[in-house]
């Protein structure tokens, strides 16, 4: 299965990128070459395999035994308490902004 120039156009739109004609042609060729090596993935039988989104859920229990004895169920991704932990640093954070006014980030007019 190959991508077409229309696919590139659609993906560019999704990605908020623009490619001129020569760039689009180059990209199309490059992506199709890349997806040719991706095809070998299709032949792998992955039935029953749980997708691995993250290395932390692949770490076996033994790995934790000596390092974190309290983690009896292995390591899970954590959520921290829902409390304010950062001070207000608006001025510091806006120093590198392209356009600010009265503490607000300026963008082009959206609503007429």
């Amino acid at each position, binding site marked *: 299965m190959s*991508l077409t120039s229309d*696919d*590139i156009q659609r*993906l*560019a739109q*999704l*990605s*908020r*990128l*623009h*490619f001129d004609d020569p*760039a689009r042609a180059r*990209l199309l060729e*490059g*992506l199709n*070459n*890349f997806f040719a*090596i*991706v095809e*070998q*993935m*299709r032949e*792998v039988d*992955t039935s029953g*395999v*749980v*997708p*691995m*989104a*993250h*290395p*932390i859920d*692949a*770490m*076996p229990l033994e*790995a*934790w035994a000596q*390092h*974190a004895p309290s*983690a009896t169920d292995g*390591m899970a*991704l*954590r*959520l*921290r308490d829902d409390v304010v*932990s950062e001070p207000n*640093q608006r001025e*510091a*954070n*806006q*120093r*590198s*902004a*392209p*356009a600010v006014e009265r503490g607000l*980030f300026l*963008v*082009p*007019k*959206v609503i007429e």
Partner: protein
Amino acid sequence: MGDLHTLGVAQLSALLQNKDISAVELATRMLARLGGNPHNAFLSVDSEVTLAQAKEADARLAAGDTSPLLGVPIAHKDIFVTTDFPTTAGSRMLEGYRSPFNATVVQRLGDAGMVSLGKLSCDEFAMGSANENVAVPAAKPLPVTNPWDESRIPGGSSGGSAAAVAGHLTPAATGTDTGGSIRQPAAFCGITGIKPTYGRASRYGMVAFASSLDQAGPMARSAEDCALLLSAMCGPDLDRDSTSLDVKEEDFSRDLNQPLAGLRVGVPNEFFSDGLAADVRAAIDAALKTLQDQGATLVSIALPRTALSIPVYYIIAPAEASSNLSRFDGVKFGHRAKEFTDLADMYEKTRTEGFGEEVKRRIMIGSYVLSHGYYDAYYLQAQKIRRMIADDFQRAFASCDVIAGPVAPTVAWKLGDKSDDPLASYLADIFTLPASLAGLPGMSIPVGLGEGGMPVGMQLIGNYLQEARLLNVAHQFQMATDHHLKAPGGAA
């Protein structure tokens, strides 16, 4: 002391602690070597900042502080945000950007008393294997060159870090490794580098490329130096990085002197396939023989999905990148296009101007594999094979303690050789990608010279949290050999 720049971290630490030299003198000597920007390794230098940090280190030394890294110079890959230097991630998108905070890794090394010499070049957003994808300074971006042969690439994406250490511009550097970006440039430049277990080093303040793969680590001249640096870099950062492991800090130097007798070294057949260049194979074979002479046993193991790691990685990493890089929209920081008609046009022009070609290519791949109708066939299938690759490692570690093999199929190639053919560059990542996908610690140590007198690196892969074991093996190897002491002609 005419050759201070040739010394490593542990040696410099001893001189500083003995008051044979001050941190200011040392920093001054190192800064003097950066004129003309050898190998195009640095993206920013600020002697005032460096000397102020050195002065603080001297005050701590005078007060009797014996922290082992106190006063020792380091330079940071420009993917770590810093308050004292600009941060570009090698991208026009961030040219001129100044972070309001320090990356945790930078902060930890600074708290340990290290003196920063500046920021090091890298591939744009760490996407590349040759450091040719650097886009800043926008007026004249220059690829980093290999100190062993200026007509060759240093590897990437931590190419500036590797070239600076190999060229004796700094005794130590930070790097980041998503699919091999510490190990491969370390191998190509003949230095030592380690990527710890995913989650050991905080990702807070590391400009994000692929969040489930990115990991920071040190690059230096020896395993002994890397152990000192890694001990300072790693530790829980629970409030600021949700993927930071809740395991206590470790002294990674503790096992360096353990003998290797009884060590089982797994040798994956798939790493010695037809694609491996003869010169690299010869150097690796000799290194494995050395480990045997030191009492280790070689065990043949299988990592049957090694070749699959290429498509799996190059789907997962761009998918995560396309999401991470959506933050660059010209609103809160970074580049904004000068002319536009409306908000959507501003986004599009800003991103089109700000990102380089390889970054755009990966965003496009990511958008594709995450899009409706393709998600299951590509992204989800890649995540399933990722687990199979991680499981393969666990099976292998049932019969061995560490895994050893090449870092890359060849030595460093010539500048421009693969720059028009990203696929060729992706394929060369084959031996570093599996450990990255699994989240395992991996390192590269120099094991000799190959074609054109270029360094060859051997990769050591350990099981989760076994960094001390890796460093032990590397250090024992380096006690028995002198490959890590060899330097390119220009560095002396």
